[in-house]
């Protein structure tokens, strides 16, 4: 039996999904199930004056109505920390329905529980709520004057300013400078499954079936807010219909579901409606970024100043960190990155696929393209020349691959011979252009120790467990592969169990860290069990392997054999049965190296795009995309390719389609459904290819896995914008690059 890690194995959860039999968290059938519906505030700033429940209660089928008057006070409001850190991770450090104040449009002001979704919706519509409205400030345009410098981000976990050298001096002295300002519309995750929680109490214990990217984060947060022991909160999730960051933090509705179930004395399912998903699980915030590059005529960067201004909630200093890549992907002695915040009438923004660095890199990589034109250099050579062997602290990369990604991408895409002159290629009504961008995404070791369990039964069948969540990434498949190889068994005899806080815990699978964490823990559990079994055999006088050194025993297909004489051996099952052992198990742990590990930690890639821009109408269509990435060991290329393709197409959506803005009159998001908030459809998809550059990495865990969830998106929009410039000669300073942005010359910057 050859190893299965690295093989394009089919998904183990596929059959349940193609037949429609897999049960998602909103499809759990429980006796007496009631249905909750949140009623969101219809003003963005102000106060709830009155809530008349008479008609709603008279509607029938209503089990209960919760408002600020009867909602229990939360026991302990945790501060905002990324769920990866393994602490309570509320999406915002604010819990609704504790008083009558309204901070943002859609903030929960009531919760109706009824005997069906339809009855709850009917009763909710009959609630008569009056407000004392204030004037909302929710946009950069309205709040610019109130912007302040952020000191820290993520509840103090990371500094908001990153400075070294003398940026102003270096810019003043630079032979060449590039200065650009960008405006980016807000983005919404819009997984096809809106967030949903089904809550059931049994005495003092509550079980939550929660559509989450981190069962452990849900458990920690709900236990804190309710003030109950962690052992009384069990969170289960077996199928999640996409997350993209919206289910990375734990939003108020999860705890409200538990509160509602206690309130009505029945299990309660609480699902966000599609419009509510625009106001209930965060968003990528509206932002401006300004970048100034200084360089010598030889192309060496001498200064980078990268600043971000964005809107956050009244209660949290949240900004997607925009400068984590621009500070290190290119070497530069003089650097300033910082974040300014406007506290406005929105909920707290949150992680959205390729958080922070997708737009930070857009800014950097389009500026690098401008610099290449200023210098008359090839943009690939400019990047390779400036890409250093060490990070901004002088630490060597745990693994690199950036230059190889750019070069291989150039070969695959057919970059050689490109005439860089803008606006020279026309086909019919279309101007054709090509563009390139570098990509990097941080590997963030902020999580605590990770656990998994491997267990073998005396018939040779195996269960591997960790609390990981399957939200589309393929974790149940890739961890089955890792477990099978680690233990030395066939995948067919192994079942991987996940999505339950009763299992050994791993933290939330966010920030591209899921595969790294889980594979490390699973690998260690499986190999520990393998070693235990071998040790048992060589110490067992009845074993044919008795007396051998453990290092001279190998395992394949559940059978231990001597490396010296393959005819000598026995199966795990034989060993267990002979010793009257019903099973054996091992706990595997993995302690991440920590944020201060002396290594540069980025996953690298390169993106290429070819666009056709309608010369009169400004409509951009992407014709081709090529992405090459160096994510360390690829556990399953079929799954990894899907993740990277998905990221690149998210980049396409971000570049051309996705954007929302707040109506300044009402403070309401202008778009709140999938008919208006446009995401790519099949017909938008170009010819697209993904390839890998192999790099070995012995820093990021025993298997050297760096993750593929985010880096696929990084640089994709920048490559498209650079291609639009090549096609039209117009620099795009606004995302999305809609027809009017392109027609009108690219936006404000």
């Amino acid at each position, binding site marked *: 039996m050859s190893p299965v890690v690295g093989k394009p194995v089919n998904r183990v959860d596929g059959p349940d999904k193609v037949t429609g039999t897999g049960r998602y968290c909103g499809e759990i059938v429980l006796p007496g199930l009631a249905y909750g519906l949140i009623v969101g505030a219809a003003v963005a700033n102000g106060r709830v004056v009155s809530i008349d429940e008479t008609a709603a209660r008279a509607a029938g089928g209503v089990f209960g109505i919760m408002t600020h008057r009867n909602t229990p006070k939360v026991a302990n409001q945790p501060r905002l920390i990324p769920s990866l850190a393994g602490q309570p991770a509320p999406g915002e450090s604010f819990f609704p329905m504790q008083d009558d104040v309204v901070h943002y449009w859609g903030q929960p002001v009531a919760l109706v529980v009824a005997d069906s979704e339809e009855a709850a919706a009917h009763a909710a519509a009959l609630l008569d709520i009056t407000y004392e409205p204030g004037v909302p400030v929710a946009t950069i345009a309205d709040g610019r004057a109130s912007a302040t410098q952020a000191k820290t981000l993520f509840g103090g976990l990371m500094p908001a300013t990153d400075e070294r050298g003398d940026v102003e001096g270096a810019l003043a002295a630079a032979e060449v400078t590039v200065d650009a300002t960008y405006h980016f519309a807000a983005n919404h995750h819009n997984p096809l499954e809106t967030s949903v929680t089904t809550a059931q109490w049994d005495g003092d214990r509550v079980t939550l079936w929660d559509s989450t990217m981190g069962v452990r984060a849900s458990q920690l947060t709900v236990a804190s807010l309710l003030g109950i022991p962690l052992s009384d909160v069990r969170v289960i999730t077996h199928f999640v219909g996409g997350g993209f960051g919206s289910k990375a933090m734990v939003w108020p509705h999860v705890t409200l579901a538990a509160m509602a179930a206690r309130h009505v004395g029945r299990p309660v399912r609480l699902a966000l409606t599609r419009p509510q998903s625009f106001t209930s699980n965060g968003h990528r915030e509206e932002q401006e970024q300004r970048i100034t590059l200084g360089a010598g005529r030889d192309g060496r960067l001498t200064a980078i100043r990268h600043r971000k201004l964005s809107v956050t909630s009244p209660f949290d200093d949240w900004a997607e960190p925009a400068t984590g890549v621009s500070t290190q992907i290119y070497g530069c002695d003089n650097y300033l990155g910082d974040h300014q915040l406007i506290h406005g009438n929105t909920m707290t923004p949150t992680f959205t696929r390729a958080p922070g660095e997708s737009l930070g890199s857009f800014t950097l990589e389009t500026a690098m393209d401008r610099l290449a034109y200023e210098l008359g250099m090839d943009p690939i050579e400019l990047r390779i020349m400036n890409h250093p062997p060490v990070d901004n602290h002088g630490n060597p990369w745990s693994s690199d691959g950036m230059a190889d990604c750019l070069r291989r991408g150039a070969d695959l895409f057919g970059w050689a011979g490109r005439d860089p002159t803008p606006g020279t290629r026309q086909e019919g009504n279309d101007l054709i252009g090509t563009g390139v961008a570098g990509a990097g995404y941080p590997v963030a070791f902020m999580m605590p120790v990770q656990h998994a369990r491997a267990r073998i039964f005396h018939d040779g069948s195996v269960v591997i467990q960790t609390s990981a969540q399957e939200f589309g990434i393929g974790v149940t498949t890739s961890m089955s592969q890792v477990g099978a190889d680690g233990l030395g068994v066939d995948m067919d005899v192994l079942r991987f169990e996940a999505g339950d806080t009763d299992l050994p815990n791993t933290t939330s699978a966010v920030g591209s860290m899921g595969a790294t964490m889980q594979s490390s823990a699973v690998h260690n559990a499986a190999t520990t069990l393998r070693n235990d079994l071998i040790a048992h055999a060589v110490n067992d006088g009845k074993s044919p392997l008795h007396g051998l050194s453990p290092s001279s025993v190998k395992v394949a297909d559940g059978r231990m054999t001597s490396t010296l004489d393959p005819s000598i051996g026995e199966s795990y099952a034989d060993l267990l049965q002979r010793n009257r052992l019903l099973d054996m198990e091992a706990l595997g742990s993995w302690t991440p190296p920590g944020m201060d590990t002396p290594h540069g930690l980025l996953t690298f890639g390169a993106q290429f795009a070819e666009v056709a821009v309608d010369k009169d109408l400004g409509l951009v269509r992407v014709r081709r995309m090529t992405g090459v990435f160096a994510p360390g060991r690829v556990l399953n290329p079929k799954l990894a390719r899907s993740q990277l393709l998905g990221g690149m197409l998210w980049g396409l959506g971000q570049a051309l*389609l996705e954007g929302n803005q707040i*109506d300044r009159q009402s403070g309401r998001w202008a778009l709140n459904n999938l008919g208006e908030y446009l995401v790519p459809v099949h017909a938008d998809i170009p010819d697209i290819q993904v390839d890998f550059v192999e790099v070995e990495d012995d820093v990021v865990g025993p298997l050297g896995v760096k993750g593929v969830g985010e880096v696929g998106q990084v640089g994709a929009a920048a490559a498209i914008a650079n291609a639009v410039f090549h096609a039209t000669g117009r620099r795009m300073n606004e995302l999305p690059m809609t027809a009017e942005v392109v027609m009108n010359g690219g936006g404000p910057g």
Partner: protein
Amino acid sequence: MTMRPITFFRAGSIDEAVAAVSSHPDSAFLAGGTTEIDLLRLNVVQPTLLVDVNDLPLTYLEDVDDGGVRIGAMARMSDVARAPRIVERYPGMSQALLLGASEQLRNMASMGGNMCQRTRCSYFRDGQSPCNKREPGSGCSALTGINRGHAVLGTSEQCIATHPSDVAVALVALDAMIRTIGPDGTNAIPIERFFLRPADTPSIEHPLAHGELIVAIDVPALPVARTSRYVKHRDRASYEFALVSVFSAMRVDDAGNVAELRLALGGVGTVPWRAHRAEEALIGRPATPENFAAAADAEFADARTTPMNEFMVTFAKRAIVRELSEVTS
């Protein structure tokens, strides 16, 4: 469970359907339902009696008047789009149908229902914002709100909501006739009179009496329509309402003059927009890009824009010039 009371009644005949709706004040016909069920579930419309007309014998397509076609009101958009006589005689109409919505929606949506399609204005659809179309006298949030996709032609101080239909754009160009049966008998309404501009009463979109049912759409014979086209420009490549769409049917004579022209626009008007001014400016004149541009200018001379949608005027003019130039070449 006590829900908002709705009675459902499937009509077995046209007379039964008309009688059921006209005798009940809060009733509505239900055809494909792709707009109506949507709005009902959004609480934007609140009928208490739904009269299902899906069983009525109105799914036919038949020839009339030496080459025209009569389309039953319950004919599904997907069936009409692929019907050979539509594809041959009115290819632009077939294209308009296929460029609308998605396969799933076209399979359900009916031709009569499409004529009654409601606007996609988000302030109308949210059920909450001031909206004169939904709640007369409450104001128009779109005038000063997010209005990138709102109309620039046919607007009023009361409403700038865009008409969303594609096929209706083709039908106004083709001078179709809307045939109805109501409590007062049969009626035939020229299609341009069927779509009412908002003026002071944006809530009244059609000159239909309560209980008056669309039973058919007559599309007259029009030889020039055999080369008609429908081009739809939009942000994404499919499954989106138009930024601007152009229906054209044009014949240029041997001298190079425009002999016949039918031109209509989608995405820019409060109603499916027949470009009469542009037609008048071009008929009898040389089919040149300069004249096309002048005609487009004439059509948009009275356009009323906002900072967010003013690009639509330039966009639409360029789309017209391109379309007519391509048809000519």
